């Protein structure tokens, strides 16, 4: 299975290595660096590579490469999924996953990696279990530890791993018992030049933040579960109940976790909340172009669109942009060739507009294709698919928890072709 792990930063330095079997020389990464060079951008590096003695499986995330070396046949997704779990665990422990943070907490990182894999086979990947064995650093504790020379390692040994529900630790106690659910929906869409929908679908995820004492058994039901076409669950959800009654029945992990992700059936027409009127053009001569964008709300169910942002990857020939916006701010990065227009809140009365000219490299041919627009937005208090949580019941514990559900709609991979 997984032989070794190398963490490589954006500039190609190996800043951490961990071996679960015999040591693999870090020179194996040279093959990776070669592929990295050939690929151009880091996203284009093939995730699976072959070298004479090892196979390299890597992920690129948060400007870091997680590179694992394996020696024998293993499902590549197995490794990829695990590496992402490692990255998520860092995120969970340190609040972010970056080179600086990992270097600062190298001992905890090492202990985590030691617990997560045994002989290259995942041992404990549940955040709840790991946190019992190795406590995450907090500001307070790191101060205390500095003064007293205390440790991050849990004094008591965890028992959670051994219970039937490995994702929940035992003996949880809160003074305020709360359960929050965020229903987050993302619209994936491709709109063509004229604004007609080429492709659109809704992906949803329910994030939960559960702070409940003891061993609560929760049941979450929906008003309209038929909307959900395809679902995937956290292991805590009892699949049989879902199959038969369409309710989510589970003993939750402690803290934050993703309860389920779902896909809304594509038969339902997806409401596209905004429209974009655009005209981008480059002139044959004079090495310049012009840009005129207007955005406006479309089907927003009476809610306001917030956090509107348009990102355009310009053709390489574009040197600079001279634009004026009626609302929000805009920046153009001439190195990455990315134009970002941060619109903010959409006002239906006064539609935001961005117009101006683009200057091209002199002598360069007119770009073949107009750049496509990537749109970000956020609508509070709305699940665009119309899904609604009906009720949340708790069994197994006596107290009355505070319950809350929040809906948000976001743009996922929302692209307008021009």
């Amino acid at each position: 299975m997984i032989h070794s792990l190398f963490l490589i930063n954006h500039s190609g330095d190996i800043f951490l290595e961990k071996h679960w079997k015999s040591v693999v020389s870090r020179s194996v990464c040279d093959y990776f660096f070669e592929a990295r060079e050939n690929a151009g951008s880091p996203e284009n590096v093939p995730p699976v590579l072959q070298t004479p003695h090892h196979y390299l499986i890597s992920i690129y995330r948060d400007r870091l490469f997680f590179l694992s070396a394996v020696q024998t046949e293993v499902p590549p997704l197995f490794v990829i999924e695990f590496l992402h779990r490692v990255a998520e665990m860092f995120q969970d422990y340190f609040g972010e996953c970056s080179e600086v943070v990992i270097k600062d907490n190298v001992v905890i990182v090492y202990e985590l990696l030691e617990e997560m894999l045994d002989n290259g086979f995942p041992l404990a990947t549940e955040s709840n279990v790991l946190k019992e064995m190795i406590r995450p650093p907090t500001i307070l504790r790191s101060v205390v530890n500095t003064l007293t020379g205390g440790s991050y390692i849990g004094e008591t040994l965890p028992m959670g791993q051994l219970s039937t529900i490995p994702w929940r630790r035992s003996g949880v106690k809160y003074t305020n018992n709360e359960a929050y659910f965020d229903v987050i929906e993302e619209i994936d869409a491709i709109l063509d030049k004229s604004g007609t929908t080429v492709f659109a679908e809704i992906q949803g995820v329910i994030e939960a933040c559960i702070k409940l004492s003891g061993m609560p058994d929760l049941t979450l039901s929906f008003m309209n579960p038929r909307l959900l076409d395809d679902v995937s669950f956290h292991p805590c959800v009892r699949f049989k109940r879902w199959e038969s009654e369409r309710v989510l029945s589970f003993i939750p992990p402690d803290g934050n976790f993703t309860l389920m992700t779902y896909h809304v059936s594509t038969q339902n027409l997806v409401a596209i909340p905004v429209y974009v009127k655009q005209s981008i053009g480059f002139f044959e001569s004079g090495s310049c172009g012009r840009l005129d964008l207007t955005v406006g709300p479309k089907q927003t169910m009476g809610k306001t669109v917030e956090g509107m942002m348009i990102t355009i990857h310009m053709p390489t020939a574009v040197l600079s942009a001279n634009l004026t916006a009626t609302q929000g701010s805009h920046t153009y990065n001439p190195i990455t060739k990315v134009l970002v227009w941060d619109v903010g809140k959409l006002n239906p009365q006064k539609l935001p507009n961005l117009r101006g000219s683009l200057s091209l490299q002199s002598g360069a041919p007119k770009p073949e294709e107009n750049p496509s627009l990537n749109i970000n937005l956020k609508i509070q208090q709305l699940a665009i698919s119309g899904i609604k949580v009906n009720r949340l019941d708790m069994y197994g514990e006596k107290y009355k928890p505070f319950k809350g559900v929040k809906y948000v709609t976001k743009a996922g991979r929302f692209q307008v072709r021009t």
Partner: protein
Amino acid sequence: MSTTALYNDQGGAEAAVEAGQEGTPASSGVGAGFGLFSTDFKKNDDLKEMLESNKESLKLEAMKRIVGLIAKGKNASELFPAVVKNVASKNIELKKLVYVYLVRYAEEQQDLALLSISTFQRALKDPNQLIRASALRVLSSIRVPIIVPIMMLAIKESATDLSPYVRKTSAHAIQKLFSLDPDQKEQLIEVIEKLLKDKSTLVAGSVVMAFEEVCPDRIDLIHKNYRKLCNLLVDVEEWGQVVIMSMLTRYARTQFTSPWKEGATFDENDKAFYDSDVEKDQAEAKPYTMDPDHRLLLRNTKPLLQSRNTAVVMSVAQLYWHLAPTSEVTVVTKSLVRLLRSHREVQYVVLQNIATMSIQRKGMFEPYMKSFYVRSTDATHIKTLKLEILTNLANEANISTILREFQTYVKSQDKAFAAATIQAIGRCATNITEVTDTCLNGLVLLLSNRDETVVAESVVVIKKLLQTQPTQHSDIIKHMAKLFDKITVAMARASIVWLIGEYCERVPKIAPDLLRKMAKSFTAEEDIVKLQTLNLGAKLYLTNPKQTKLLTQYILNLGKYDQNYDIRDRTRFIRQLIVPNEKSGALSKYARRILLASKPAPLLESAFKDRERFQLGTLSHSLNIKTTGYLELSDWPAVAPDQSVRNVEVIEPVKEWIPSVGKSKPAKSDDKFYSDSEGEREEEGGSGSRSGSSDSSSSSSSNSSEESGSEDESEEKSSSSSDESDRSSSQSGKSSSGSEADQKKKKKSKKAKPSTGNSDSDENGNDPVAQGSSSSEETSSDSESADESESEAQQKRSTSRSKPKVEAPPKKEVSLLDLDDLSPLPLTTSKSSVLSPSLLSDLEGLSLSNVSSTVQVNIPTFGPVKSHDLLHHMTGKGLSAQYHFPRRPCLYQASMVNVQITLTNSSDQALEEIHIKDWSPTNLNVHCFNTIVYPCSDSTKEDQFTVSIHPAVGELLLPTSLTEHDFQKEQGKLLGMNETSATITVATKNSSAQPLNKQILSVANLGEVRTGPSNIHRFAGRTVSSGALVLVSIEAKENSTASLVINTDKSVMASMLLRDLKQALSQA
């Protein structure tokens, strides 16, 4: 770095060193490494000091810095002695860090690492399971060959630990030990076998992983655990699910028949197969019925499609793809498409797999076509894969949509992607004839594209397309000739030149002109263009020599002195071919046919076509090469292997199965075996003297029919006695032996006075063996004709005598087993309870002691008695029957083998009137079919079960005592054809003399020949029926092998015995 900050706080001279170390970039080159080395060295000195100090905090600090060094990949090995001292520290964190260090460097410092071993050995006995587990983890991670035996011991011990977590760790340790020392394989397999039986979900994944790594070919270990694994699967942790599913995929491919095949041929095969075997399930004779186990696997994996773990979903998908009936594979589609929302790397792998799937099964993904539309922000490899899939999905109905989509892609800024799109268009054009023209026109339009790579790619694709339909489109060729001057990409130029050469007769004016241009620029062209120019010249020379002869010769002259040897070579070849001279004889006549032969159009197909050979979702599939450790997926077997191997006895507390005596042994072979022995017996009768020590029974049974009769009788008798004892013992154990009344009285009066009764009951022969094991709720019975001291008549008498005493407690109506032909008079049960339960238990104790003494008296040879299932309680509706071979000489007739049948009622109803009838007389002693009939009293229901007794060949022997000298003498007589030998592997457990003998004697009823201390063990016996001598000798050798020699003139028996012994010895 927090450690640094912390360190600085403490303040010390080392701060500067630390800071210096900080300043160095992590990626130190070779030069920097040398510089660092000196600082490292100095620094390590102070680390050593810190480690040797008394303060825990200082030690901890030092260890943290050392771990930091390890993490950066720096060498900290010289600190080993200082670190290893702290392995026994009480501080958990310090201990953990020392473990980290140990695992990293133990391999390099083997001698010093041994110092730490005792600590782990102690920790292995710790009451805390986590400490035990972590000790085993570290111990097994220390790659020091010298501690292999210690590891082995620790693994074996931990495999039986009460804590599933420790057992899980031991499963991991198995793999570690195996990679350290592959010679331990056999022993490790034993541990794996044990762990496979584990019911904990925690263990399942890890042990299957170990199985996959150590012995993936030992599929026989899975049989018994198959159903359990299927049922546990949902609750196993995610990573284990992946491993188990991939193993089960391989397993299912070897054990079930293909669900894809339909039709007559399969049907016929089935019939032919089943005609010979009556016992098989009738349901299977139909065209195709899925094995219920196959269905079980598919049903239990389906919910896992909803897993959040992408690897699990992919695993289910591949399992369905390789195992499910064609109509059911589609259930995975939705989930696979869902994975496309996941991380880029996940997308990449999933798309690769979808690409392979979509070649074979367009329909699966067609409804989700739009999910494969390319976004400008996708990574290049994702884009190409999506394109690949879209191309695979293209058909007449959706091609227009796809082409419209492709049009946007062609304009992409990513030129490599645009080029790939053009190729995709080309593929669509060849696959779907309706759109060929549209595509061609579109591609021609692209020829005016500004981007060179796009144009070049278009030219190449057009060339391929034109080849498929060259008759039309001469205008396109002309258009391309016009473009020629503008195009600079070599491949495109070469394509145009080739195209014009190939169709020069269609463009008679343009072709020579192009050649003229080429002749002018020949020296400046790329090699590939030069080669094509030579081809063009040669073709024109043949078709239009008037205009081009000189031009061609000019080009040939240029080519003759080219720098590239390929071109010089080609030049020489073409010159010889087309320019006739005296040397080039026959070949130039055919020049035209050679050069202007019509060429087959290139087949444009998916690059993923050849990936089908790999199992989906594997690394091999992803890389399209066979990776190390890749396990091939076998083809479906034409005929399913025996499915009963997966049957697991659920109720029985002790599972004793003898695979070799299962259903798989067909009746035919038994018959043959018997007839063989018959034939030989006659021979033997002729020679007579050879088996001088043959006992009276074999000599008396001069003709086979007589013997068969006697065998029959023995069977009958055994059952009659069984019926009798059944009656007696089942009546709450009131009478432990069904013969003598006075003895019974004695027992009744002296409740717990076994000693006197024992010998009596031995003589009388009826041992209530089963009573000890059967609970009081069960009506149990047993019979032994073996120790029947009385004749048949006597027995009848005893049966009738015991009848009046037959009594049953009111609730437990006990049935009488009676034999129609032996006791035709109707038997009735009188109901009056005499015995109290306490008496019953007393008698149970009594009977138990009876057994032990009997064993001592009657059986000199060792014989752990294995019982075989005759009738399972599920099929028998509560009635179960077991039989075993008690291995006692049959006193009724010497040529008989005793069979003891135990009947158990596990239902809550009373069963009455159990008969055994319908012998199948042709099968004689070897094979007999019994039918057990019992009508239920309350429902007056009558059930009938056909059962059969399979005697293991080893049970058909009688032990014989021989001296070593006699043994060798006899062995000398039985050489050549009469000798069967084999080298077998012996499980390590069996390698020593004691268990070896035990194993052999458990398989075959033989007598051990006393020999001096040597490696050779000898056993002797005679066949019960004919008294032919059977000599077995086994010589233990190194590497846990042994050579086994069997000398007997019953060669069939010898080979069967050999097989049984081999199996018994190789197993634990």
